[in-house]
């Protein structure tokens, strides 16, 4: 077990958002958190990573290091791609040379050509920036990677490439992943298990295991599964336009 959320409750300005939410993340497993926008996915992730202290409940982190990929790349505009990748290594106290080596290796791993290493974020495309953000997360050799709708602004093709990249890296380096998304197709492609959040119930209504292993499922199977689940009452809120808190 890597992470355990126990009876988490939270809200903003007296309005409850999450009530008694529990979730366990096992070694080497990727769990997707799906749900409609405004249901508290990002808040739950921020609680798990420690950016927000929950009002109720307990977070147990049974690991040393975590990393996070945000919805926006969140790169420092004044650092080159390579220095951005090394940014997470700053508190580690590694030598400059060592940081640069690690950054170069991770840049290569996410498919960033050497000619892009010294470019500033403003000179990179949206996809490239998100690759840099993933490389920054990989560089710290995390035990868990938190991902907050990291690919929602990318086109379908690029989305798949980067999803596969994250899944492959998780397998190779053995980290677990907590992957927030509102896209059921994405969740089915990358996850071992899917936790469904509901804004009506202010918490997780069901956790489902996806058959097969992430990265090995064929497109037909993903499509059929999403098709079938989209008529399922559990996922109704994802596809439903009514009763939304906008």
């Amino acid at each position, binding site marked *: 077990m890597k992470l355990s959320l126990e009876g988490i409750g939270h809200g903003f300005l007296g309005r409850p958002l999450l009530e008694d939410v529990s979730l366990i993340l096992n070694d080497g497993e990727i769990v997707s958190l799906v749900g409609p926008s405004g249901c508290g996915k990002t808040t739950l992730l921020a609680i798990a990573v420690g*950016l927000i202290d929950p009002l109720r409940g307990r977070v147990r982190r049974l690991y040393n290091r975590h990393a996070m990929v945000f919805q926006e790349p969140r790169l420092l505009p*004044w*650092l080159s791609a390579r220095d951005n990748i090394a940014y997470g290594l700053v508190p580690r106290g590694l030598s400059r040379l060592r940081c640069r080596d690690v950054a170069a290796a991770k840049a290569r791993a996410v498919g960033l050509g050497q000619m892009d290493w010294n470019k*500033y974020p403003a*000179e990179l495309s949206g996809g490239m920036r998100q690759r840099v953000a993933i490389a920054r997360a990989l560089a710290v050799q995390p035990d868990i990677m938190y991902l907050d709708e990291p690919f929602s602004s990318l086109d379908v093709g690029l989305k798949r490439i980067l999803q596969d990249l994250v899944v492959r890296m998780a397998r190779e380096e053995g980290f677990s992943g907590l992957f927030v998304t509102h896209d059921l197709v994405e969740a089915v492609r990358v996850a071992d298990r899917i936790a469904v959040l509901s804004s009506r119930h202010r918490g997780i209504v069901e956790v489902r295991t996806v058959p097969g292993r992430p990265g090995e499922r064929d497109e037909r199977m993903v499509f059929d599964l999403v098709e079938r689940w989209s008529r399922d009452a559990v996922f109704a809120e994802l596809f439903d336009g009514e009763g939304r808190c906008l």
Partner: protein
Amino acid sequence: MPRLGWLGRYLWGGWASATGIFCLFALWQFGSEVYGGFVLPTPLRTFAEIATIVQGPVFRDVAAQTCMRTFLGFALAAGLGGLAGAVAGYSVAAMRLLKPVVAVILSVPQISWIILVMIWFGATGTTPVITVTVAALPISFAGALEGVATRDRSLDAMARVYGVGPLRRFATITVPHLLSYLFPAWTITAGTAWKVAVMAELLANAGGIGGELATARTMFDIPQVTAWTVIVATFALITDYGILHPLRESLESWRRAGQPRDAAP
């Protein structure tokens, strides 16, 4: 190599600036021909006067005195204003307290400060320094306040996730952002510093370039007045284009990234 390229572009851009300045000289020449050389000495007459002044015995001491005072006043204004502004940017309570204070300081005429400080400190070199500090401080304060208040909190959250400590976060996230607010403020601060320093020297009878201007006034030596004016303006321009601009360029080279190649410096 990129630095050399930048220097080349910077100097080349100087041609355009030079053209503008020569247009100004042409206008000046025209004015002196219309109103007569006694009221407005020609540029040439002024430059001859400058040459005499520069070769004269007092120039070095007088110029050094004013430079020192301006620099001290600027450093105090930039330092204290920047520090107070940064603190106010972090703390809402401090901002509420300091903002009106600074607004009041800003609305007090500089001439009143000169008289007050003159009474407090006498006709010494302290008067111009304090006046410069008080006159220029609010601009630095406002710049730093705005810079810290508009820092990117999402980058801060990112750094916190990666375990970067508060000092490191300040240095790597807040400071680079702050600089882009401080440099324009410092440009204005420096310009104000020169003008106020000379004004304070003149009124407080505290020597320096202002003192020379006072003498020229009593002697009704108009070419002296225009000559010293051009000298002060030159010093101000050197501060801006010779020091602040290149400094900003070297610290903010990332800003030019992603912009069209021929964007003017």
